[in-house]
């Protein structure tokens, strides 16, 4: 039972990638199992937890729902792409500084979503952040320190495009 493979090309964290993927493969599986990009997490596979959140052409998506072939020709950013040569992205740094990270398993998705919210609305309020992060489940932190971190970055205009 060999499934048909399709060749796709896209930009991953600013670098060109090309590979063949089966038509049924999800983007999350491609990132983790084919490309070794394990920063993006699986926690439900059904679009209900946000652990697999990545950014495609500036919009966040649940990579567990999106077919890998649909990445063709697009610009993909994962948690590994936020870091700059100077160090952590300001949102990542704020999460560290405010104690938002416990087990950390939800954090790649949470940070991708938070950064995207801030990029679209640099003046994001705490209430807006709460609503914007509704789709990202965290079992450890109770979200309080996540919101503290987002609040600390809001208004600083540091969340332009993530692509290095």
């Amino acid at each position: 039972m060999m499934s048909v493979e399709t060749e796709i090309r896209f930009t991953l964290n600013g670098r060109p990638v090309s590979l063949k993927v089966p038509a049924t493969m999800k983007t999350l599986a491609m990132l983790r199992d084919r490309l070794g990009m394990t920063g993006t997490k699986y926690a439900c596979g059904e679009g209900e937890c946000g652990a697999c959140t990545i950014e495609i052409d500036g919009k966040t998506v649940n990579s567990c729902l999106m077919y890998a072939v649909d990445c063709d020709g697009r610009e993909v950013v994962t948690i590994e792409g936020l870091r700059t040569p100077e160090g952590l992205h300001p949102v990542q740094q704020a999460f560290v500084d405010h104690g938002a990270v416990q087990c950390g398993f939800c954090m790649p998705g949470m940070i991708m979503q938070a950064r995207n919210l801030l990029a679209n609305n640099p003046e994001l309020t705490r209430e807006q952040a709460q609503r914007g992060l509704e789709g990202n489940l965290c079992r450890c932190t109770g979200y309080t320190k996540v919101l503290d971190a987002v609040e600390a970055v809001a208004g600083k205009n540091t969340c332009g495009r993530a692509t290095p």
Partner: protein
Amino acid sequence: MEKTANPTTKQTLIGTRVKKPDAPDKATGKTRYINDMVLPQMLIGKVLFAGRPHARIVRIDTTAAQALPGVHAVLTGQDATGLKFGFSRDNVALKDKVRCEHDEIAAVAAETEEIALRALALIEVEYEDLPGVFTPEAGAREDAPLIHDNFPGNKSLHFEFEHGDLAEAEAASDIIVDNVFRPHHVTHCCMGTSCAIADFDHNGKLTIWTQTQYPYNYKMDLAPALGINPGDIRVIQPPVGGAFGSKLDVYPYEPIAALLAKKTGRPVKVIYSREEEFKASPTRQAAIIHMRTGCTRDGVLTFRSADVLLDNGAYTSWGPTIPVIMMRTVSGHYRVPVVDFKAQAIYTNNPYAGSFRGYGNVQTTWATAQQMDMLADLVDMDPLAFHLKNAQRSGEVTPQKSFLRECALVECLEAAASASDYSRKRTEYAALRDAPGRYKKGIGLASSVHNAGGAKIHKSDGIGTILKMDDYARVTVITGASEIGQGIDAVITLIVAEELGVPLEHVTIVNNDSDVAPWDVGVHASRTTFIAGNGTRRAAQKAKAQILNAAERMLGEPTETLDLRGGQVVFERDGTPLIQLERLLRQMHFKAEPELVMVTDYYEPKSEPEGARHISDHSAAYSHAVHIAEITVDTLTGEITVDKVTAAQDVGRVINRMGLEGQVEGGLAIGLGYALSENMQIDKGMLKNACFRDYKLITAPEMPPLDLHFIESNCAEGPYGAKGISELPTIVIAPAIANALYNATGVRIFNPPMSPETVARAIHERRAQTNAGKVATPAEGLAV
């Protein structure tokens, strides 16, 4: 955050905000969780679950699965027969009879997950379904189907504790409340799903990468499932996506991974999908609690009795052992002179329970804290005054001999009540209860007590610590203390930096390999900051003594005049630097009679073993917490919105303030889910809502503002005075909301969760009763 100490003043990091050392890697996706791990030659293991609650296996045929290219092994019950494990030795990795939906019937190791799944589909099993038992009451009936042949009457564990004369105490009571509470099944929902990787070497030694939170007892518990010596198991703990008590036992997927590895000679990884995680993980213990509490007309507690029936599920993990903690709350939640406690666990064909943050106390406090509120109402006292009247103070001893050395219950009550303006709001909201209007406000107070210095339920509650320093004054702490996200890494780092005057960044922790790190009982019972904190501090102080002795010999200054600050040896009195610490260490190392700084410590807390009669001071400390919930109830839909939570907790002393807040916030979120929305819908043993869409965790918008108050009682036995804290936040919030709901609407909910349906129905029923002219008794109280 203070990175390096200022040498002129004594460094004190205690109570500051220290970052988790692993946070940068976790925030950048660099951390390699066990779920991310791939080893050379690794195979993927998949499990075939029964998918029915009770059945005989008539026939099982694995021929087609075996023949599938890419399949390396197929195992069934025949391959693990007799290798029983678990508390009651009633579990086995692969079953020969089905006792619950998620019983493991067969397992496959294959080159890819896709092949493994196809192989599972090729396994033919013929079942003969048997009548099942789905409630403990049904299981206890004489004619109930038997689940395990060797457990007659489906009887599992039994516990009892009695103190004082119950009949006399009842007679002396003016008021008795008598209710049945049914705390429900919920599950941990760790974001990282269950996973184990097993590999045998050719000397027969097993290495297992696991999410366990108790690595040393884990060896002992895993070995019988494999028929090997615990000494032949090496446990490696990569970073995990949460645990919360769920990884405090061995579950069948772990011996299955090992059995597949043994059979194939290759590493095998078993990892659950979210659906498997929901179905096959342990639950929080469900219970039926018949509780009675009495008091005099002027509000003095006279007795408390609890008759508890536990739904054991199909096998015995930690769940049915919770009466050990339940009875401490029944006998110790306020001054209870007479106590009568009984608990019986009955096997059923339901999923079985493990330990879950709050371990038994979530269930008991749900009952005790509501009855405290009911009694206050019946004797017409402000619940705050009622609580204060019965509150225990420092120096008191409970009927089970828990010695409350430093008790800050009164301070917690006062702090939470005054910060939230509790008494005024309570009176105001109660007066508006039956006024017109769809939305009602309520405020509710609840409290509890929990062990805060470990719990000596094993023969030891101790920890081993090894501390070494290199030639550059970098410190490595090799400790049994596991990190599961809770932040012991930051606490250990902070304590070492405090004692040895080195920067936080110069401390490394090795705590994930049982062949390297010494014994510890694991992350449970809110014990790690207390136990590992003490172990670390003692080891660091030994190292400091060795360093200062060497400094005395080299500098000719007496040790009492010296200190370690800012990476230097300094004069204690004014911080004048004498020598760089790393230079001193090199001089110690390379002199004629060389010495290295490498110390060991074994710390065993001063607590007594639990014992069969449960009369012992089983923890080195106890702590109290008071939560006050302010809510708005939509009386039409039954929806509860939590507007604010004020939480006061006796923490002994704050060590890492940021980590402490995080534990309280996160614990509260789990407690809120338990109170309001989480519920495993189990129908005749089958889980109906195995996904996050239908099993609702608390999300960011539902998290209320929190007002946290940390009361520092300075525990003499704790590290710098600290107590363990992480379970109480999960324990106390649900009854605080229940009491707020009563304040707002006059209804009581006995069976959580307080979902909109449940609340709306209760409000509707109360209205119907009131309209029919029947005055609803506020608390089903019985005046005697």
